[in-house]
């Protein structure tokens, strides 16, 4: 008997330690806002094509869901009137309204087939219906719980769909770089003679590019719009426009009712227009310089909009609590003066509805702020390789990994 008990205790030690190890590997789910980003391209300017290509090369920031539509670039052959004002820009609002952007964002949420009117909720499930298996059961049982789960997700997900209209203009600060270009030509000729390959044309082009491109920077005005998704809008959609099978009458009703899905102007920011540091950057690669300038400016605007518009503010989960770390950094506007609230998530077991309650406040450690801005690592920027920002507790109780943090507005 004693023998058996001791063996059990020994076995228990191993089992307990394994369970501890498994708990640490659990993935963290959290709902992100969704964005559709479009640019106003100024065809009257130099490098309009390069700026357009850089914009199309930009990835959706990892703290947001990609809700892009099939139109990404709209042209203007002159300056946008009123671009620098903080107010809503009527030209942009008119474009969004006359092209029924609100309805298209809703159509994308429900994967709407334009030819048959058929919809599904797979994207909603993928982006934030955590109880997906519960939902499937509820759908099968045709219970009210399915609708409640969907509406909860809808409120937090569909209602947090945003449009960013980025008005991008190039600012010309050309400087000469003849010495470097000349050196390239000489090297090119020597290499060409040795290999039998004529590189002189190539180095001529490089020289010209260097002379004209050095000192590139952009100014970006970003206008933020939010999809209106209130109870009346969602009720109208589910009753009159949603069908999980082809339905010609609902398809037509949606087409005729597109203007019911509205966007509201939420805010506007202008980038500081700092010349992004090109420290150590090869001058013979202008396209990458364009990409860096545009990406840094748009990231800066997104961070600023997050400060201004609470619904647009980024929430991320804590990675660890000893030390307190989170995958957020300078790209999201984190600075030594930032303050973040730590949020406890509570889920109503009946409805599945989630609410958030502040559990504490934390502040970044200034020497441990992650510089995750675009190409910070290539620049050799301090903090670029940290991979996360480390915080210290300002107030509150116990934290645990997976709790969300959100910046507290300082304005």
């Amino acid at each position, binding site marked *: 008997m004693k023998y058996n008990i001791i063996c059990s205790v020994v076995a228990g030690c191993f089992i307990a330690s394994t369970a501890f190890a498994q708990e640490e590997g659990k993935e963290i789910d959290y709902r992100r806002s969704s964005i559709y980003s479009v640019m106003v391209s100024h065809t009257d300017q130099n490098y309009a094509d390069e700026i357009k290509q850089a914009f199309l090369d930009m990835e959706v920031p990892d703290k947001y869901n990609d809700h892009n539509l099939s*139109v990404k670039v709209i042209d203007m052959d002159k300056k946008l009137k009123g671009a620098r004002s903080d107010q809503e820009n009527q030209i942009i609002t008119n*474009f969004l309204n006359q*092209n029924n952007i609100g309805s298209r964002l809703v159509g994308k949420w429900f994967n709407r087939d334009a030819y048959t009117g058929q919809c599904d909720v797979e994207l909603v499930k993928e982006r934030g219906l955590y109880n997906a298996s519960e939902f499937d059961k509820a759908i099968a049982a045709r219970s009210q719980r399915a609708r409640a789960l969907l509406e909860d997700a809808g409120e937090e997900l569909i209602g947090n769909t945003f449009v960013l209209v980025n008005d991008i203009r190039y600012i010309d600060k050309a400087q000469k770089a003849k010495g470097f270009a000349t050196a390239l030509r000489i090297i090119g000729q020597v290499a060409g003679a040795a290999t039998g390959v004529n590189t002189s044309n190539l180095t001529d082009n490089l020289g010209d590019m260097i002379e004209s491109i050095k000192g590139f920077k952009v100014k970006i005005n970003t206008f933020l719009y939010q999809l209106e998704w209130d109870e009346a809008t969602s009720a109208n959609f589910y009753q009159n426009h949603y069908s999980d099978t082809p339905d010609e009458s609902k398809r037509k009703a949606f087409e005729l009712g597109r203007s019911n899905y509205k966007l509201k102007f939420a805010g506007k920011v202008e980038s500081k227009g700092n010349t992004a540091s090109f420290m150590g950057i090869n001058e013979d690669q202008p396209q*990458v310089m364009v990409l860096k300038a545009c990406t840094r400016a748009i990231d800066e605007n997104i961070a600023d909009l997050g400060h201004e518009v609470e619904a647009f503010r980024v929430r991320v989960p804590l990675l660890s609590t*000893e030390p307190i770390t989170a995958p957020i950094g300078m790209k999201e506007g984190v600075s030594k003066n930032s303050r973040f609230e730590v949020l406890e998530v509570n889920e109503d077991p009946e409805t599945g509805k989630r609410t958030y309650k502040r559990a504490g406040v934390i502040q970044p450690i200034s020497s441990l702020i992650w510089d995750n801005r675009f190409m910070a690592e*290539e620049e050799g920027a301090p903090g670029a390789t940290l991979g996360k920002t480390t915080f210290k507790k300002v107030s509150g109780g116990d934290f645990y990994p997976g709790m969300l943090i959100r910046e507290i507005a300082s304005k």
Partner: protein
Amino acid sequence: MKLRKTLTLLCLLGMAGSLFAQELSIKVNENGKAGYVDATGGEVVPCKYDAAYAFENGFGKVMKGEKFGLVDKSGTLVVPVSYDELTYDAARNIYRVKKGKKYGYLDGKGNVLLKPQYSLISPFNRYGKALIAMGGKVTADNKVKKNYLVGAKYGVLNADGTVAIPAKYKGLYEFRKIVNEGKVGHGAMLEKVTYYFGDTLLTDCKYMGFDTRGWVALGAGVLDENGTIVIKPATVSYAFRPNAGMARFYDYFTRSKSFNVGYIKLATQQKQTFLNGVQTDFNDATDFMDDIAAIAKNGVWNIVDRNLSIVNSNYKYLTKGTKCGLWCLQTADGKCDFFDTAGKPVFEGQGYAGVFFPRSEQEADQRYIAVKKDNVWGLIDRDNNTVLPFEYEQMTSVQFGWIPVKKGGKWGMQSVDGTSIVPTAYDDITSAVVPDTKAVYVKQGSLWYVYNIAQHKALGSGYKAAGRFIDGLAWARPEKFTVPDNMVYRSFSSDNSISAENFGYIIDNEGREIVSQPLPIAQIEEIRNEILKKGIHPLTQNETKNLLLKISVRSRHYDLNSQISEENWDY
């Protein structure tokens, strides 16, 4: 007594398991300082660090200021808190460290294995080699969004941390530029590349090029894997990767823009020129394979030995099996002589007058050679046994165990085991392009059809032109085919024009049309990836429209004051 011993042992094992499984836990005190405690909560490592990380490999990583060190389970600081970076490589049981801007390695116990004096240490490649560098300035290359060094000196590190080639060469080059792939002149040349942080070496580093300049591989010398010079710099213009102790070389003369061609014997550094003052595409000589090489001179191929003495001559054509280790030299009247890599004749007296060596690099294919004898073709193996009888009008190469054959004026496909894959009933046939392919194309009249191997028949519609199947999908263009003239389709061309030749449908290997609307052929890879995301199935009208819009997004733009028509919107 025996029971008591057993119980004691079990307890010790259990305790050892517990200790092994439960490393010291991190504790953070009220001042925010971190340390470690044991299972009873007793402090083992005082809370004096800014951060402490979970134990790994029996050590806990601690941080003070922005420096890192290691403590063991007894609380001893075995690695001082002096490194700017300290990362454990579990696969090799070593720690990669950085001090200031210098990298080095500690062994699994925390002892210095490679002093941090290197400005770069690359990840190890699959051959267990890493690039090391000393000195240089970190510079950003924004085209590829990576950093590299300017002005550094390079060497090679072995997987056990020993230095294979000391970091003293401004120019260190790999034999990574493959020329004349699949042709007789196939070989590897030195290539100057920029090594970015994070890149690995590509080769086994058995031989490396080197010089003091570092900006071009022309005229570089060659080191062996121990760093010994086997060819001095400026000995030749271009050295090919040595093989069998011999290195093919080409010397370039700028005034006459001509080349000398020959070989260097590594053991003696003796340089022997075989051709003088020629124009070349590096396809007029082979690397040495064991004891022989072949060089073309005045339109004739010659077999030479290690002294460059001609052992056989007068051949009009040379065909070399890529991996099967055989050469075929053909005289002007079509007679074939075969040699193995030692220069020994094979298939002597067989009277073969045509050959197709295997085209793939698959090991299993290398046994089979298609040969012509008395105006008919058959398939033999390396031992000259007949695999497929000499009864075919034409054959081509074995590819993944199958070979196209022609009989009675019609093409089909045979397996090397004699099974008929496609009957000889078609005007033409394509080879298998991947192992276990599900379909090939057969031609009837002027159109190509998908021949499904499993169903033993040609399926679906005929197409005027088609691409090869990759991952079960291919583009295909029917005879009668028009492309809609609208903004979306015009956007695929830089001059806004539409040419039907640039578009096709998408079919699967059962001949089904997965997309029955024109899509741009130039973007077939992107289209295929999009279709595979949701599984191969005939796309609906809506799915096709959204696919078209997705792949054209980069080329479409609209006026800010316009109402954009529905064909341009996905939702």
